[in-house]
């Protein structure tokens, strides 16, 4: 059972692949949001061996949860109200992700073209693989 100790109102992003918490922290731009955040790294997990967890206390309205599916499709999002889990969400894999992920292939046109719409498409929904629309290189989540 997930320990949500101390969290009254907010969300817990659970089952993050170990080592992935900081990435999600930065993609969600939590740094600049008016919420308090606790990051737990390398927590023990029966299912995954090791995992990361992010606890976010505060209102979550302006946090884009859709992108989480593209970043790590195995995570669980627990919505907490008055200290109890009121909802569990499993992120869906959007068919297309625009201007969130950036292609890391140095030979890709997106690295030089001004004003390009960075676009990734879901090419393998079973494994959550996204590929750059332009160069077709898969997005490396590490």
């Amino acid at each position, binding site marked *: 059972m997930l320990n949500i100790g101390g969290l009254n109102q907010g969300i817990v992003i659970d089952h993050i692949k170990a080592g992935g918490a900081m990435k999600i922290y930065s993609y969600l731009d939590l740094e600049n949001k008016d919420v308090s955040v606790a990051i737990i790294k390398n927590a023990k997990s029966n299912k995954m061996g090791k995992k990361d967890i992010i606890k976010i206390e505060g209102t979550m309205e302006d946090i884009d949860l859709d992108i989480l599916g593209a970043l790590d499709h195995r995570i669980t999002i627990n919505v907490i109200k008055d200290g109890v889990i009121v909802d569990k969400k499993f992120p869906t894999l959007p068919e297309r992700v625009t201007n969130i992920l950036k292609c890391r*292939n140095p*030979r*890709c*046109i*997106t*690295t*030089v*073209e*001004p*004003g*390009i719409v960075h676009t990734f498409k879901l090419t393998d929904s079973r494994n959550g693989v996204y590929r*750059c*629309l*332009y*160069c*077709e*290189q898969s997005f490396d989540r590490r």
Partner: protein
Amino acid sequence: MKHIISPTDLTVSELNELLELSEEIITAPKRFAQVCQGKKLATLFYEPSTRTRLSFEAAMLNLGGSILGFSSADSSSAAKGESVADTIRVISSYADICAIRHPKEGAPLVASHFSSIPVINAGDGGHNHPTQTFTDLLTIKNLKGRLNNLCVGFCGDLKFGRTVHSLIHALTRYEGIKFVLISPEELRIPNYIREELIAANIPFEEVRSLDDVIAGLDILYMTRVQKERFFNEEDYIRLKDIYILDHKKMANANKDMLVLHPLPRVNEIAPEVDDDPRAVYFKQAEFGVYVRMALIMKLLEVEKDA
């Protein structure tokens, strides 16, 4: 309006139509000498590739059209930092169709998003080069009479060779194809292609020796081992000459096996092989013009007997 960015932008039946039209052109080129009169092809070459550019230009001129363009990034607006999107918006008002070559992968796709004329990818880095694949298919179809039931050998750099990957992919759409992949350990096909072949249940074998397998091949597709792919000189020198095709190796091949090569070759095919009737790589370059003629016609939707 259709763009050709990847070889699979044509369905098998569209591709067959393209190859049929190409073969009509081969039989009676004169009949097509006027069909694109008044039409202009822009060749936007952000990196030099004389062979490909001339092939496109010859194709348009053969159809009675005219050509304009640039052939290196520093002689063009790209040098002043203009985006691909802006360049193609402008070129769209100058020409009826364009062929774009760019060192960055995906640049032709970007162009197609902003273009009001058909865009043909003439090579984007190590990514796609659809007209080379169409050329290869036309060569095989025209000289073998079929694209199915073939044992196709690929030899040399199968790891980085974009033409190889895309021809393998294109041939998997036909029945009865078997692949023999001949390369040193270091230059074997990438995993994703191996997985694709396994998933599609297409027979293939990976071997190191050309001598061991040449007798069983219908097609031998030779590739250049590029120096820039290697981290050190030693590896390059050790590997580059392993698979040189010469008279001695050709003696073990079938009398109707065809030798293809995307050109330019370095030394993987000895010049003595050039006179062998099975060596069709120069013919292949010629077919490249015919297939580009057919493609321009299809994209401009011009009638045969205009």
